[in-house]
């Protein structure tokens, strides 16, 4: 059986590659993300309640809500998990025996294959759509509500905003450079439904991507990317983000070399699971917020 919600939150790492890589982005979204871990700990932090019986009641209701599959919370968790593991699938086998350890970039170089620009662009677009669909699942709005998602993006904070910062920096700027939005858009428009179906990241999550068939799904991905590109552009320009600035902050916590830039993106793909990590945190927050309100 899959893990319980409290196990997932209890088992969130307090250190390691993912946490280090996210902390490195504090300069992008200052003070927005604290690595909140532990189920009861999260209940207290989210609700401000400290009474043990109250925490127990909130936690139990959250467990019920998560386990009711009609409520969409499990689907969101599946999306966050799957998009992370699918994107890093190529290097994952080599990484399997290193779980829980910090992996050295240079030591791991031999196991990495840089992704072609097109595959990288598709990854970025698919991950963006996964955020949109997971958002809809968690918040209860129809799965293809691009407009609602766009409105909510402006209001993103905490771990959700950090996830978007990591998407822009680690799946946009680092692998594709400053022109990642244009490159992304160009790549998607040149992609055929057949090619999309062969993309590892898309394959992982395609069951939950709206559109009905690969052509429809490609249309949905294109439309979503097109709608969010303005937000991404503002995000980058308002913070003066460049590939160089992100890389220099990243290299302060994880040893990566700028002259092997092609490999840095591939390395992040296999070693940094930021969708799963911050997605679990978002989900726990929403479940707990609902649980306490319903008691």
């Amino acid at each position, binding site marked *: 059986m899959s893990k*319980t919600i409290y196990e997932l939150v209890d088992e969130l790492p307090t250190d390691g590659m993912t946490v280090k890589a996210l902390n490195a982005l504090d300069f992008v979204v200052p003070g927005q993300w604290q690595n909140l871990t532990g189920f009861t700990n999260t209940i207290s932090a989210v*609700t*401000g*309640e400290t009474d043990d019986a109250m925490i127990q009641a909130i936690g139990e209701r959250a467990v019920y809500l998560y386990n009711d599959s009609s409520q969409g919370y499990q689907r969101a968790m599946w999306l966050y998990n799957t998009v992370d593991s699918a994107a890093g699938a190529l290097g994952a086998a080599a990484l399997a025996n290193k779980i829980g350890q910090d992996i050295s970039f240079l030591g791991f170089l031999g196991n990495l294959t840089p992704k072609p620009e097109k595959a990288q662009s598709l990854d970025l677009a698919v991950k963006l759509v996964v955020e949109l669909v997971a958002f809809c699942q*968690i918040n*209860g709005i129809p799965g293809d509500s691009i407009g609602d998602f766009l409105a909510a993006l402006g209001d993103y904070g905490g771990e959700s905003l950090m996830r978007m910062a990591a998407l822009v920096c680690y799946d946009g700027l680092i692998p594709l450079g400053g022109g990642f939005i244009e490159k992304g858009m160009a790549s998607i428009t040149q992609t055929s439904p057949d090619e999309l179906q062969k993309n590892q990241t898309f394959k992982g999550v395609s069951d939950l991507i709206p559109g009905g068939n690969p052509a429809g799904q490609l249309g949905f991905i294109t439309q979503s990317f097109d709608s969010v590109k303005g937000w991404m552009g503002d995000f980058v320009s308002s913070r003066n983000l460049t590939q160089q600035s992100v890389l220099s902050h990243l290299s302060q916590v994880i040893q990566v070399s700028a002259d092997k830039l092609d490999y840095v993106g591939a390395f992040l793909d296999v070693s940094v699971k930021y969708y799963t990590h911050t997605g679990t945190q978002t989900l726990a927050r929403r479940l707990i*917020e609902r649980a306490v*309100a*319903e*008691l």
Partner: protein
Amino acid sequence: MRNSVPTFKHWQRSLLGLLLTVVLLITGCQQAKAPDRFAQAQQDSTKRGVTAVAKDATQGSQFNKYFPKPGAGYERVYTQEKKGFSEAALKKDGKEVAKLSISDTSSLPAAAAKYENSSQTIAGYPAITMGKTQTSVLVGKYQVKVLGRDPNFSQAEREQWISKFDLKGLSKLKI
């Protein structure tokens, strides 16, 4: 094989001893671990046919029109709209100060039952203050709750915001 035990070599005995120690250590640790406090809820909620939300619960989208209107420096941002539940964040100067919510207690009868002992009312509806941050009223089968998210958001403010909901309108909602 009668002689098998005496032929045990020294290293085999040491290994056996080590294995026994490990087994004891493992079982000892398991006994020492406190039973998981949410394990019962996990077990109960995954039984066949158990759901968290009642089948006939009102859709959250039906609740939105009864929420307090934003204004006077306050922003209202809807955050969840699920079957039986709707919630919005109340923000002031961009910072969340409270959560506003309406839920259908048919999914959680205990939520409604707690008002039976309540002597407090807000706008004529039975009211309860719970924990450090929660004030709520029961309107028919619907619970309206305001949850403080800023330590300075007082109980008086929570009560004030509850009365800003269209409670009368909500009392007429029949789904």
